[in-house]
């Protein structure tokens, strides 16, 4: 890749980033629609559900937040659930930190707001493709803007049309099924399996615990097992 000089070259790099993001949208857009549908059909204000898009900007955490709000869980449980799922953002933050070190604070502050699974991958692809950091920066911006537009559009469509869908479709089970799918895809080693078993067992016992405290207890228990098993495996 030639060094990025001038607006035209930056636009070309941003276009490359947008194209790199396109395959992700096949998976991202339906999830955004599902989240929109869930927001429209849940007990909470529809606009509050839609706001999870621009404010949280992470499908899994939005799904969890909506799920817990709809279950009338206490606020601290909702907050803990949403943030526990987003803990992985720390890793993405670390992955791009060295590339963004020379950028101005305002640029880093804006760019970080769209840092999530697909944009982190597209960002690292951009920095791999060229030794010129300016190419990587523009590549990230192009990918992140494409993702943000598609994400907010798909949520808006779900919010707009979700309320018109008949209740017999049992769409309240969309998010749990989505969580199940993501969970099964990510249980790839013995540590994860053991941590998940503990979380499931604690969640089953926790159904009887008031205030939906079973969920944070299960997350904390599973996470502690994962940390302990990883330590033992070293």
């Amino acid at each position, binding site marked *: 890749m030639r060094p990025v000089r001038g607006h035209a070259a930056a636009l070309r790099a941003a276009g490359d980033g947008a194209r790199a993001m396109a395959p992700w949208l096949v998976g991202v857009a339906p999830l955004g629609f599902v989240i929109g549908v869930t927001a429209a059909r849940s007990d909470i204000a529809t606009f509050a559900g839609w706001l999870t898009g621009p404010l949280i900007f992470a499908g899994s955490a939005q799904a969890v937040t909506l799920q817990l709000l709809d279950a009338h869980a206490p606020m601290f449980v909702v907050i803990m659930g949403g943030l526990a799922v987003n*803990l*992985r953002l720390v890793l993405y933050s670390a992955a791009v930190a060295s590339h963004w070190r020379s950028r101005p604070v305002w640029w880093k502050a804006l760019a970080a707001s769209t840092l999530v699974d697909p944009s982190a991958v597209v960002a690292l692809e951009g920095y791999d493709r060229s030794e010129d950091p300016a190419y990587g920066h523009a590549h990230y911006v192009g990918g992140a803007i494409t993702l943000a537009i598609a994400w907010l559009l798909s949520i808006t469509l779900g919010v707009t049309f979700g309320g018109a869908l008949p209740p017999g479709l049992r769409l309240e089970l969309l998010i749990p099924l989505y969580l*199940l799918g993501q969970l099964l895809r990510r249980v790839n080693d013995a540590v994860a399996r053991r941590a998940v078993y503990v979380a499931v067992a604690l969640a089953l016992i926790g159904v009887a615990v008031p205030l939906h405290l079973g969920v944070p207890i299960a997350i904390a228990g*599973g996470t502690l097992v994962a940390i302990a098993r990883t330590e033992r495996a070293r």
Partner: protein
Amino acid sequence: MSAYVAVVVVGIGSYLLRVSMLVLTARTGVIPTVIERAARYAIPVSFAALATDAFAPSIALARTAIAPAAAVVVAAIAVRRTRSAHAAILAGLPTLWIVTALIGK
């Protein structure tokens, strides 16, 4: 109102997680080990707890258990076979509808 507050707080917290290492590694250059380990397993553990919590009430009642239980089993098989998370919805939801229609619940 509490829903708005929760969404805003999760949004702010998520943003702080996004900028955390930009700030920290600028000073120390390393990620704390315990955070790295917790983050690696945060998704499967959280999703397991939440999915269990969501399905448990309907599966615990014998009369309404069959359709969601069948949906979970079919979704799990579909994900294992296709290695796609979306297969859980694409296979699980129609299973839920079909079984519900067949048994009338």
